């Protein structure tokens, strides 16, 4: 009897999945984030549609990926009495921001092949595969991931996805102040009993506003003008400071 019940449940699962009436969708397909001096907390909303079941039956993994870039990883080597950075290894086209959020630990939700294929979790970012010899992971990879996680640029958030009410869920991530600007991709994967049922993607535009952003833009786009302005501001500030204290 009990075995029958499990079989029935399994059949139902397959049935609903095949039926393709379960879908996951983000409510906004384009979100503007205004990161200011202190960084931003990002919250995205989505819903699982086409199900009557309890939301507890599902798991969701969301992956937010920022623009990519190349990175140098240098080992520190002892030369004589001091430590010097040695020759760099280059990690190409790695995301400059990566955040995974999930309802539960990813290992409990998705099978390993899925994790590798869809790059679920910081450890599965495909670009980070320096000198991969099949089995042995190169220490550079771990060092790179460590550094990115320390900066808040890479993060895995267990519990970062949670069902709010019924089939409505939220995805949360913390964008540090040094978050790169640009186009981000959000991928959402819906799982039940270790099987991916559906997925959805959305785009996210991260902009920065305010004085801090203007300074950054000016410094990088018109560096000479910025330099001259720095001198002018310094001269003015120094002069004002001098006046203020001469009178006192």
């Amino acid at each position, binding site marked *: 009897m009990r075995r029958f019940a499990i079989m029935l449940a399994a059949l139902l699962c397959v049935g609903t999945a095949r039926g393709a009436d379960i879908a996951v969708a983000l409510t906004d397909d384009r979100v503007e984030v205004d990161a*200011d*001096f*202190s*960084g931003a907390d990002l919250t995205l909303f989505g819903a699982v549609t086409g199900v009557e079941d309890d939301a507890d039956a599902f798991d969701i993994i969301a992956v937010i990926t920022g623009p990519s*870039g*190349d*990175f*140098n*990883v*240098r*080992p*520190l080597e*002892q030369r004589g*009495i*001091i*430590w*010097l*950075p040695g020759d*760099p290894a*280059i990690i190409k086209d790695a995301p*400059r921001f990566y955040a995974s959020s999930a309802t539960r630990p990813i290992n409990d939700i998705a099978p390993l092949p899925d994790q590798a294929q869809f790059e679920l979790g910081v450890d599965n970012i495909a670009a980070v595969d320096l000198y991969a010899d099949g089995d042995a992971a190169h*220490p*550079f990879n771990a*060092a*790179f991931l*460590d*550094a*990115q996680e320390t900066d808040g640029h890479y993060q895995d958030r267990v519990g970062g996805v949670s069902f709010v009410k019924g089939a409505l869920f939220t995805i949360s991530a913390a964008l*540090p*102040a*040094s978050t790169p600007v640009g186009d981000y991709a959000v991928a959402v994967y819906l799982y039940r009993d270790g099987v991916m049922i559906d997925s959805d993607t959305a785009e996210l535009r991260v902009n920065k506003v305010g*004085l*801090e*952003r203007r*300074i*950054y833009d000016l*410094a*990088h786009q018109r*560096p*000479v003008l*910025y*330099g*001259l*302005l*720095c*001198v002018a*501001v*310094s*001269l003015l*500030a*120094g*002069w004002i*400071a*001098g*006046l*203020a*204290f*001469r009178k*006192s």
Partner: protein
Amino acid sequence: MQIYLPIAEITVDPFVIVFLGAAVGFLSGMFGVGGGFLMTPLLIFYGVPPAVAVGTEASQIVASSVSGVLAHLRRKTVDLHIGGFLVAGGGAGAVVGIFIFRYFREIGQIEVFISIAYVVFLGAIGLLMLMESLRALLREPTAKRTRRKHRSAEWMAVMPFATRFRRSGLYISPIPPIVLGFLVGMLASIMGVGGGFIMVPAMLYILNMPTNVVVGTSLFQIIFVTAIATVLHAAANQTVDILLALMLLTGGVIGAQIGARAGRRLKGEQLRALLALIVLAVCARLFFDLALPPDALFVVEPTS
């Protein structure tokens, strides 16, 4: 409260930065030094990337020198003629310094390079100051110093293009001021210092300039050369964080006023011995940071 610095790309506590500015301002007011050679290492200790610390410090020195330069110009204690040659050499030195800085940045060794430069300079200057002030403290306080001769060294007398510098009362070749300016300009670019601690003794003992114009002329050179270095750093490396500079300046002007008052209570030799100890302490910290096994055995940096 936390503020994100756009160029340094780190989040800092503005009160800590203002306090840092005030502390170094206090010391520079007390000892009558620029303070760049203390501020840059302290910024590095706080976590500001060394390249940004250097570029930003150049702009802060511009700000903190303005009132001094104006005061000296009013009092006519600036030798503009010799100062012009110093600035000419300094500008060229700043450009060369930027190229050296850029080279080390490209090969990824700029942080170590800056630290080593500081260890060498702070170590040498700290030791010299300490020895000199200890000798002075141990000597009879009334003992008179041998008077300086107002004559140039022989090697300077044989140089060409001898020019009369009226305010300094010198008749020397402009080559030594240009070379001196050049060396100090290089330091300004590479280390983010004004270089007064080298310029002033060099003016006194090598160029034989009279004491009353030395500080003003040195400040005159510093403000031009650090301004040039600021523009060069901004243009070549994008490492000038004006927000950081302004916060440091805010603390700096206040600290300098308090420091100047505190400095009047101490004797010159005591002051110099104290400054020497501070300089050596900063030097030691930089050295240990280089020599001790680092926390993280890897450096990760974006290449683009």
